[in-house]
């Protein structure tokens, strides 16, 4: 399909601007001005509409297709939450920060504040900030909070312990905050090797970061012990709650002893993923860490009004422009109100049911590196198919032709030829059965006609792409 720059016609005009009701200003001196207009396309409104409508039809999403992309919780995003977020579009965030301005934002502040309270109860933590703009941003914020805690206590810490079954953002976030990352391998039970962990634990460890359930979709039954050991060593424990979908109403990180947790509103709380974002990664903490929360913090004054705390000297400072991805928070809030207590418990029950159903219906044809009850997702290895020269990627492409978005492949990296399937709770048995059928067909084809898998996909507007060429040529901008 043509690029939008390729359909541009010199002199063509699109959206018209309001007429000016003031005189033209004296032009700025030339040195401040751009030599010529930026090379934006020149299009009619219809050109624009048709271009992006066509592009959208070269995409699939949850609304068109089952999308069991592991670790991404591609559940149905209720349309009513889109309507809810629309209610708050015109409010300028700066207004709340003006002297006397909070009074003009009581509605939006109440949403942030109440969402924080709901998340406190959901995670069992003492306080929540909704400021972080995605899960990884929450992690970084959380590790900064831990760093500030240790600094305030005069603790000198150098390391963050991260099992290799944790999400890639965990070590990356720890490194962003300046810690050295100690990686612990996975033991046969499916999570962090406890002996190796104990060996790595020492007084210079700032934190232990657990993804729970981990990237294998498994729940670690030793998390309490890990928390206790870490605390004994003077380390805090971080709970990557991006997989909260599995444990809503079943377990609360705060009850177990975790000190910091982040959740992904765009996964567990049903907000759409927008071709890559926006997300929202609120962070919950235990009491000891509250003094360090980022500013501005939404607090309730004694008179019941909501206010912004802007001048806390112990705070880590600021991690985002304003108050977080408000529109995402509002959607998640709408979602949480609709589901309520029973609805949220229902989420984890059905998410786990769906994942175990898929796992059990496929485990005869694909290897399960850790054959046990999974949580909200299951991870297979397509290693068995390598004998036919068939790779996980071939299975993925075949699934596209069958009308499915593929699962996550080659992640987690600790599983060879990983196929990571997260069905989510909003998918029906009929959909899962169709997907299972396609996965089984793929395994059979791997034996009988591997070339057919290698050809896939054939139903898409383009076939497999040359990724090496892209990386080599680095053509990232239309010339």
């Amino acid at each position: 399909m043509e690029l939008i720059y390729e359909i541009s016609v010199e002199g063509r005009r699109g959206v018209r601007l309001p007429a000016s009701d003031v005189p033209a200003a004296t032009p700025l001196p030339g040195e401040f001005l751009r030599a010529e207009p930026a090379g934006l396309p020149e299009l009619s409104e219809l050109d624009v509409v048709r271009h992006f409508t066509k592009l959208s039809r070269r995409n699939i999403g949850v609304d068109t297709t089952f999308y069991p992309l592991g670790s991404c919780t591609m559940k149905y995003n209720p349309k009513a939450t889109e309507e809810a977020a629309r209610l708050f579009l015109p409010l300028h965030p700066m207004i709340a920060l003006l002297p006397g301005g909070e009074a003009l934002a009581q509605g939006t502040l109440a949403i942030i504040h109440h969402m924080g309270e709901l998340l406190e109860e959901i995670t069992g933590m003492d306080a929540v900030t909704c400021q972080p703009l995605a899960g990884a941003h929450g992690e970084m914020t959380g590790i900064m909070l831990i760093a500030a805690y240790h600094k305030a206590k005069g603790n000198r810490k150098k390391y963050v312990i991260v099992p290799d079954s944790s999400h890639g953002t965990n070590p990356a976030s720890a490194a962003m905050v300046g810690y050295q990352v100690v990686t612990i391998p996975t033991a046969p039970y499916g999570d962090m090797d406890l002996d190796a962990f104990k060996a790595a634990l020492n007084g210079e460890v700032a934190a232990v970061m657990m993804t729970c359930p981990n990237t294998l979709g498994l729940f670690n039954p030793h998390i309490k012990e890990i928390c206790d050991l870490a605390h004994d060593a003077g380390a805090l424990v971080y709970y990557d709650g991006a997989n909260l979908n599995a444990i809503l109403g079943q377990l609360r990180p705060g009850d177990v002893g975790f000190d910091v947790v982040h959740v992904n509103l765009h996964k567990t709380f049903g907000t759409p993923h927008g071709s890559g974002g926006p997300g929202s990664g609120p962070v919950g903490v235990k009491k000891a860490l509250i003094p360090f929360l980022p500013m501005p913090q939404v607090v309730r004054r004694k008179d019941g009004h909501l206010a912004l705390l802007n001048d806390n000297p112990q705070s880590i400072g600021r991690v985002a422009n304003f108050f977080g991805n408000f529109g995402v928070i509002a959607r998640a809030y709408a979602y949480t109100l609709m589901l309520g207590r029973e609805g949220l418990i229902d989420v984890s029950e059905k998410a786990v049911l769906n994942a175990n159903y898929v796992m059990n219906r496929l485990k005869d044809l694909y290897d399960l590196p850790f054959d046990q009850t999974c949580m909200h997702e299951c991870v297979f290895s397509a290693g068995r198919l390598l004998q036919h020269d068939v790779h996980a990627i071939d299975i993925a492409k075949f699934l596209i032709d069958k009308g499915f978005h593929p699962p996550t492949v080659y992640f987690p990296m600790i599983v060879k030829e990983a196929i990571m399937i997260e069905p989510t709770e909003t998918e029906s048995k009929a959909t899962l059965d169709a997907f299972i059928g396609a996965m089984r067909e793929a395994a059979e084809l791997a034996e009988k006609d591997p070339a057919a898998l290698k050809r896939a996909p054939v139903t898409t507007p383009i076939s497999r792409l040359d990724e090496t060429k892209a990386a080599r040529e680095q053509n990232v901008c239309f010339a």
Partner: protein
Amino acid sequence: MGFTPHTPEEIREMLAAIGVGSIGDLFHPIPKELRARSFDLPPGMSEFEMMARLQEMAAQNGRVVPFVGGGYYDHVIPAVVDHLAGRSEFYTAYTPYQPECSQGSLQALFEYQSAICRLTGLEASNASLYDGGTALAEAAMMALRITGRSRVIMDGAVNPFHRAIVRTYLANLPVEIVELPPVNGMLDRQSLAGKLDDRCAAVMVQNPNFFGGVADYSDLGAQVHKSGALLVSAVYAVSLGLLKPPGEMGVDIAVGDGQSLGNHLSFGGPAFGFIAARKQYIRNLPGRIVGETVDREGRRGFVLTLQAREQHIKRHKATSNICSNQSLCALRGLIFLASLGKRGLTELARLNRDKAEYAKRALAAVRGVTIFSDAPTFNEFSLRLPKRAGDVVVALLRRGIAAGVPLGTYYPGEENSLVVTVTERRTKGEIALLARELEGALWN
């Protein structure tokens, strides 16, 4: 209940296939003693009850005429932006790991990257960052990585929120941050010259800056590069319809808030941050990047590229921890730019400056009010008032006007100064009202 489709019959069949007796059995890996001690949440409700509740909450917000900016701007948003970004194939998709069924997102993001490059005059853009502030922090870390040095110099006239983010991001790293107090609301070039040495990784400026001042940094590039540092500039996307782009000023990394491009104010988010750099630094960019390639039949297509920079592969050695970004908001930015087009963006920028210049004159005509400095401005400018700006703002909020941002909050000593923003959405009538009310607040 909620949005799950399961009927009792289906649940029974599924449990049988799994070989367990109940859904509860599936949670056996969670030890009893770790089970939730409480889950005290309100009961659920229908979407209609939820909407009624949120409508009530929305009604608790006030409405005022905003003459404030500070990174987010009240610009027009053509209806096509909401409409096209509302195509659910875009917003219910995720990161396009599987390019064959994601060419829509991928091509759009490639077009977005191209638009950012064209706006900034640089060669390599990623597919978006969280916001302008975190983009500035990422630019600092990028410069630190590229130069291997340990100091960044930041103009104090950079948005104070963004400077705070940079400080927070770098707080735990072995890095020194030097903030140069602005002189007359502009970069203190003299002091900067004295601080530029071989420890300096980056000089970070903003154009227009928080006071509204517009600069030509063309000479700065050479100076900074001579010291082996990089020049980083934050920019205001809409202003680039008129102002000299960073690429023409020797800037190495440009960042900014993309909100002004078709994203609603929405109480501060979601919008997006952009980052663009000279091509040679592409491998140091944070986040997703889309690249052009071909399929087996030689047809053009787009893929995520240079993924080896990213956390899901490189883990702690990644260029950043960012995973989810703000793609949908970046898409809105692209649609906005495409629907205004080349001439439209120029006109929009000019309209902003015309309105702001008109307002500047109107407000400077108010008794006791003077213009902060004679630096050129775009659509924001600072004023000195004969009173504490904070008090004036409070008074005018009660009259339904957000008159500007009091500078004293962020620049101690400037308690009587106010930065005023005038976008194309402000009418002559609103400007006259502001002038009248300002006069009233000052002298009645």
